[in-house]
């Protein structure tokens, strides 16, 4: 890779990752604001002194604090959440790629390290997951998914994946004859199990098809999409809309206090699968669905 391109990529990656830690995309902020106005109405309309009123008030306070927190993070230029996550990187590489894969890995490592340092990210990564669990003191390594893309160039996508929500990831291997409504039920059940743990309101990514492992990657990819933008395929677009409606009935609510709304968005990605199965994975993001994109 040419030195100029290398330096440009390192710099863009670093800038975008820091920005992701301090700012949410506009559509997500708007979704939080819209949710807040729904809870304001619910508080006004509920009978005072009832449990319903108190829990809706608590949920409303959660949303108020989230918006205040976003303002403070932007003003102070510090991460909105102390869990700056494990970095998950997706590289979609076009046919004209002027670099080797290990060079790309090095570029991402360097850009990320710069962001982690300058952006005051927490060092949240340990070496060995079971025995040593020693902090790497660098917030590295990162998780790397590589794929090809048809168009020229390079698309890099990043998630700063917090682990409160990551711990709520789940998978079901459904029967191939399962209906869309069975898929919706399975997703809702997995989200219900997560309950108040992943810092709701949540953004939900669903991966359908492939193998067990690939459905989990697809669910993560689904989280990369801008909140509110639906799948291009009309059937999957409908599935997303139906899922969103159904997820709102889980009564988890902001902070887990309950209420009429729980999810800020849901997106689905799918791929081919085997005649014998229908893998469904759920990736949950807290309201701080922090993502970044760099294109070449």
């Amino acid at each position, binding site marked *: 890779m040419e030195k100029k391109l290398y330096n440009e990529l390192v710099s863009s990656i670093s800038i975008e990752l820091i920005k992701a830690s301090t700012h949410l995309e506009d559509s997500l902020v708007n979704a939080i604001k819209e949710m807040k106005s729904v809870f304001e109405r619910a508080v006004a309309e509920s009978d005072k002194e009832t*449990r319903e009123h*108190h*829990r809706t*008030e*608590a949920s409303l*306070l*959660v949303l108020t*604090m*989230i918006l*205040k*927190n*976003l303002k*403070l*993070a932007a003003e*102070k*230029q*510090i*991460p*909105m*959440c*102390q*869990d*700056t996550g494990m970095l998950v990187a997706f590289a979609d590489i076009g046919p004209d790629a002027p670099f080797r894969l290990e060079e790309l890995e090095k570029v991402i490592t360097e850009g990320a390290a710069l962001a982690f340092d300058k952006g*005051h*990210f*927490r*060092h*949240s990564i340990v070496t060995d997951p079971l025995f040593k669990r020693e*902090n790497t*003191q660098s917030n590295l390594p990162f998780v790397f998914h590589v794929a090809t893309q048809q168009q020229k160039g390079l698309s890099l996508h990043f998630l700063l994946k*917090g682990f*409160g929500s990551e*711990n709520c990831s789940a998978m079901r291997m459904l029967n191939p004859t399962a209906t869309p409504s069975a898929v919706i039920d399975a997703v809702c059940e997995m989200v219900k199990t997560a*309950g*108040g*743990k*992943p*810092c*709701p309101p949540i953004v939900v990514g669903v991966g359908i098809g492939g193998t067990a492992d690939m459905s989990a990657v697809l669910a993560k990819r689904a989280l990369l999409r801008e909140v509110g933008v639906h799948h291009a395929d009309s059937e999957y677009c409908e599935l997303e809309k139906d899922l969103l409606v159904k997820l709102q009935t889980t009564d988890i609510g902001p*902070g*887990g*206090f*309950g209420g009429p709304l729980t999810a800020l968005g849901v997106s689905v990605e799918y791929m081919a699968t085997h005649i014998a199965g229908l893998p469904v994975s759920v990736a949950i993001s*807290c*309201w*701080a669905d922090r993502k970044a994109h760099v294109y070449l």
Partner: protein
Amino acid sequence: MKHYRLPLSKEERSSLRIYDQISLSGSILVGRDKVHQKLEELISLGKELPISLTDQVIYYMGPARKKEGDVIGSCGPTTSARMDPFTPMLMDHGLMVTIGKGPRSASVSEAITKHQGLYLVAFGGCGALYAGCVKQMKPIAFEELGPEALIEIIVEDFPVIVGIDSTGNSTFL
């Protein structure tokens, strides 16, 4: 939002009810997974703890790195449920109040009722907000754990909601 000075007296703890929105000022211990594991180890070996837990408050948190000149980095709560297996034991050793996010197990509710303690819910993901409430920070033990070390913070107007009250009532159904 009613304001309280820490530590909370038994009367204050007993007077609070679920969903009460309160703010706290005073000293809070900070520890998460590893600290709990280490404290349990010390207790089971009959060894002395690095700090007395009597009437203490523990906040489940691991801060992000701080900017030069700041007291602390971004510092919101982590998921309380992971600390559930350790909480009854720590409450038997004097701990009265825990602060984190999300639901707790039935055994934590029982321990809270037994000791007339409290579980307070902090606002998940609001790290920048809570950083502004921390006026002092001091390391206590296990510094080698980096962001997971046991520290003490002095807070002012630290906002929380009562999640489990001293009678065992919980906001999480």
